[in-house]
């Protein structure tokens, strides 16, 4: 039992109204009980007025597209006005163009400005001035001056700045938020392992009902090969039950009357009757899902590079704007100029580059990683990967292959060739679907052995198989299984009984004619890239730890071979999660957990960064932040390098954007901000940010 049911789960989290992901803390609120994990989700949800649905997401894009189309028109007209002398096209044409721009700009402010406005009001109520307030004031200020100039028929217009600012900011937010919606169904998808329908016995009759209708104490019938619909206790039948997707354990568990079975596991070879004990959220799978949600929600909020920079920059902008107003008001006594100067500072304070600085670099880095088979969940995750100080590994399926292969075949004498032993064993095992049988059959295929036929076959789940096999014209009664299974009917020669077997290996004995004729050792091999990956990580100063549910000897053996710093054995999934939690509490820096099974899922969710290897279970992949599709663990240090370089580029982007802003703010402070300067600053800073971000594509190799 991996989870103790007597322990009530203390889950304190909210789910984002838009992306559905759990989060801790206050999050963002729309004022009507809707809560969002981030501003991007809030913004998108504000626009679509609904939760994540494909059609609605397209609707957001449509509005963004329309606003973008209008803003591009405004920009084109601005370019013509800025670069064409008035005397060349005539004053009336200029005025007409200005009115056209007003008509084109107003809808953009309505379409996109509304959500910025609501958010700004909500911020101001909490005495907080965020980026959206900065954007909104800049955009409205630019629009207001432009309208005044248009109506007066003279003065500067900033319609392009006003509209492009909103479009690019929203685009940046949309790019970030849309990446997160992909995980929307991830957690709820865990329950998909539960089959949709279940067969239950009602008044002695077998009826099929929806799995959601199963109640405690119902009697379920589960045929061989079927998934178990709910947690329960075996009332009749004996079978091997595969819980690999739940526990990560590759070996099926032998269950007999009285044993507990869990929803989502697969019944292998017997007809089972099960009395339901738990359903829904109280079931094993439900609890795992709750643990994952809880762990994700309790994560410390990520302090992003952009947040840190804006924390300092925003007050500076406001102080500069205020100073400009005060300076012109007090020294010159010119109120109009004072107001215009203060507004001009706000207009140039946040060019589009701010909205692009992070999303562009992060999207490119995430795209680059994806092309190399590494899926990174979000930009925030990418940013924090570079700060990983400890990597905790799971053993089976992560550092090891996860599927046993034959490592040694020993026969009692030279008269029996290993091929012969494999031939007899494989001929019998072809009727079994056990992991050991699979390994023996694939070994036979590799050795190009033509299998014989089996006339009788009996299987004792978890112990072994026996039957009559005809091979090369000879017929024998063959038994394959554990030493215990063979011992009542077979004598075990000393050569095979020697305990020179390391505990990490599984063994299968093959016997006929009352004698054990040979022993097949199976080993779950260490992945070739594990040792290399750990060595690179250590060279980067990262501490490596192995935490596994397996016995100490086998865990220690793998830790030693991989040269891992520390190892911990016999940890249940919740203990693994606790282990990570305690480490995080000790403030040992960012912790990454690498795993593949559902038993790793709570730990994956609890870690600062959860990394799932691709061949792992669905839950591990869905709850992790990073998925390595090709299972190459050396991707982890490579990804760290990518993250470090991406963060560097993001900081550079902000430096560029702020650099241009400071120059522009100085000009605005002086009270002589020409709209062309504002447009050029916006354009150049955006282009610099784009060009700098594109370096990720060329300069960083994965």
């Amino acid at each position: 039992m991996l989870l103790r049911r007597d322990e009530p789960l203390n889950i304190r989290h909210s789910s984002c109204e838009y992306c559905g992901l759990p989060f801790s803390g206050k999050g963002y609120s729309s004022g009507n009980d809707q809560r969002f994990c981030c501003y991007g989700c809030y913004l998108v949800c504000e626009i679509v007025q609904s939760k994540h649905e494909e059609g609605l997401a397209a609707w957001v894009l449509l509005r963004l597209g329309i606003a973008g189309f209008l803003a591009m028109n405004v920009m084109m007209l601005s370019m013509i006005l800025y670069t064409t002398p008035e005397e060349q096209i005539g004053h009336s044409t200029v005025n007409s163009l200005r009115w056209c721009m007003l008509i084109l700009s107003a809808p953009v402010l309505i379409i996109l400005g509304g959500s910025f406005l609501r958010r700004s009001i909500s911020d101001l109520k909490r005495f907080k001035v965020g980026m959206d307030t900065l954007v909104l004031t800049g955009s409205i200020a630019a629009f207001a001056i432009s309208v005044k100039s248009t109506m007066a028929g003279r003065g500067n217009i900033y319609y392009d700045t006003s509209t492009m600012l909103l479009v690019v900011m929203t685009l940046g937010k949309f790019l970030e938020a849309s990446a997160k919606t992909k995980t929307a169904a991830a957690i709820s998808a865990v329950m998909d392992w539960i089959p949709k329908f279940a067969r239950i016995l009602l008044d002695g009759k077998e009826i099929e009902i929806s799995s959601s209708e199963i109640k405690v104490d119902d009697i379920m019938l589960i045929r061989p090969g079927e998934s178990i619909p709910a947690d329960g206790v075996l009332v009749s039948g004996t079978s091997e039950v595969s819980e690999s997707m739940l526990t990560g354990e590759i070996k099926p568990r032998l269950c007999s009357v009285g044993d507990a079975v869990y929803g989502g596991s697969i019944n292998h070879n017997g007809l089972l009757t099960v009395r339901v004990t738990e359903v829904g959220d109280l079931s094993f799978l439900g609890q795992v899902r709750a643990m994952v949600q809880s762990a994700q929600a309790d994560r410390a909020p990520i302090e992003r590079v952009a947040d840190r920079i804006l924390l300092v920059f925003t007050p500076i902008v406001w102080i500069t704007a205020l100073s400009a107003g005060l300076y012109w008001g007090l020294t010159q006594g010119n109120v109009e100029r004072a107001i215009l100067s203060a507004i001009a500072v706000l207009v140039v304070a946040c060019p589009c580059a701010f909205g692009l600085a992070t999303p562009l670099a992060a999207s490119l880095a995430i795209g680059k990683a994806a092309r190399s088979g590494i899926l990174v969940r979000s930009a925030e995750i990418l940013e924090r990967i570079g700060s990983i100080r400890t990597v905790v590994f799971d053993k089976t399926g992560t550092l090891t292959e996860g599927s046993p292969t034959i490592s040694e075949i020993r026969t009692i004498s030279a008269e029996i060739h290993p091929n012969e032993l494999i031939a007899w064993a494989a001929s019998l095992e072809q009727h079994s679907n056990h992991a050991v049988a699979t390994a023996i059959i694939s070994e036979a295929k590799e050795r190009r052995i033509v299998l014989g036929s089996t006339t009788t076959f009996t299987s004792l789940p978890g112990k072994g198989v026996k039957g009559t096999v005809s091979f090369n014209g000879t017929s024998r009664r063959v038994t394959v299984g554990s030493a215990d299974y063979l011992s009542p009917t077979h004598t075990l020669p000393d050569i095979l009984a020697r305990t020179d077997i390391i505990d990490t290996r599984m063994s299968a004995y093959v016997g006929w004619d009352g004698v054990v004729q040979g022993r097949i050792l199976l080993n779950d091999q260490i992945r070739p890239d594990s040792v290399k990956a750990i060595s690179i990580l250590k060279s980067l100063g990262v501490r490596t730890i192995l935490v596994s549910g397996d016995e100490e000897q086998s865990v220690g053996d793998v830790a030693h071979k991989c040269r891992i710093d520390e190892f911990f054995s016999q940890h249940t999934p919740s203990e693994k999660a606790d282990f990570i939690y305690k480490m995080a509490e000790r403030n040992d820096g960012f912790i990454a957990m690498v795993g593949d099974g559902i038993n790793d899922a709570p730990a994956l969710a609890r870690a600062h960064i959860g990394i799932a290897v691709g061949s792992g279970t669905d839950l591990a992949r869905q709850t992790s932040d990073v998925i390595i599709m090709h299972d190459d663990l050396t991707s982890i240090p490579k990804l760290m390098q990518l993250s470090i370089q991406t963060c560097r580029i993001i900081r550079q982007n902000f430096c560029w954007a702020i650099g241009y802003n400071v120059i522009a703010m100085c000009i605005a402070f002086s009270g002589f901000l020409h709209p062309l300067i504002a447009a050029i600053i916006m354009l150049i800073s955006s282009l610099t940010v784009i060009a700098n971000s594109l370096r990720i594509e060329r300069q960083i190799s994965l």
Partner: protein
Amino acid sequence: MCGGFPLHLSTSTSGRIALIRQLLFVAGKTFTYVFLGSIAGALGVIVFKNGPLSPFAPILRILLGIFMLLIGLSMLGVNLLGNRLSYPSSAGVFAEIFHRLIREPSYTSAFILGIAAGFLPCPLPMGLLSLAALSNNTINGMLSMAGLGLGTAPVLLAAGLLGSSINKRFAVLGMRAAGLVVMMLGIAILGKASGFWTTHQCCCGEMSH
């Protein structure tokens, strides 16, 4: 030239709807080209005509001409710039947007898809944008880019309507043809920079003053 997009827009629909979608896509793309042309034209006016860099304009033109020749050559398969010349896949950045628009190819989304596709870095528009920047006039810059949009329209429509079998072969030929055009533009810019066109009239209005 983003032939894949119009091809997709014509799948699983009737000929008339497909044609309208293609036309809207091309219209969106041309609109973006014109938009980019206006910015390039305005920058050209600021930098080359009135700006502080105007004394260096001839040198910049020569550099631009050489660069375009190299791009053209690389498109023809002669890559003298090595790995330094690679077009970043900004589609990665906007993949989410393209993905959504392609999934639901309504008339409006076909138009927006065209607008978005116009921003994808492509050698031919980049070459024409350089030309727009050198035209010393914002409206001329917009017109030359509009010409590019409309000029490539039949090719894109054909790519979309003829189907994938022709498309692949066509893409290689299209790339080669575009490479030739970019090279010719490079030669034209070099010619202008060297003063060749002051004595020999060029077919391009903006090149010959």
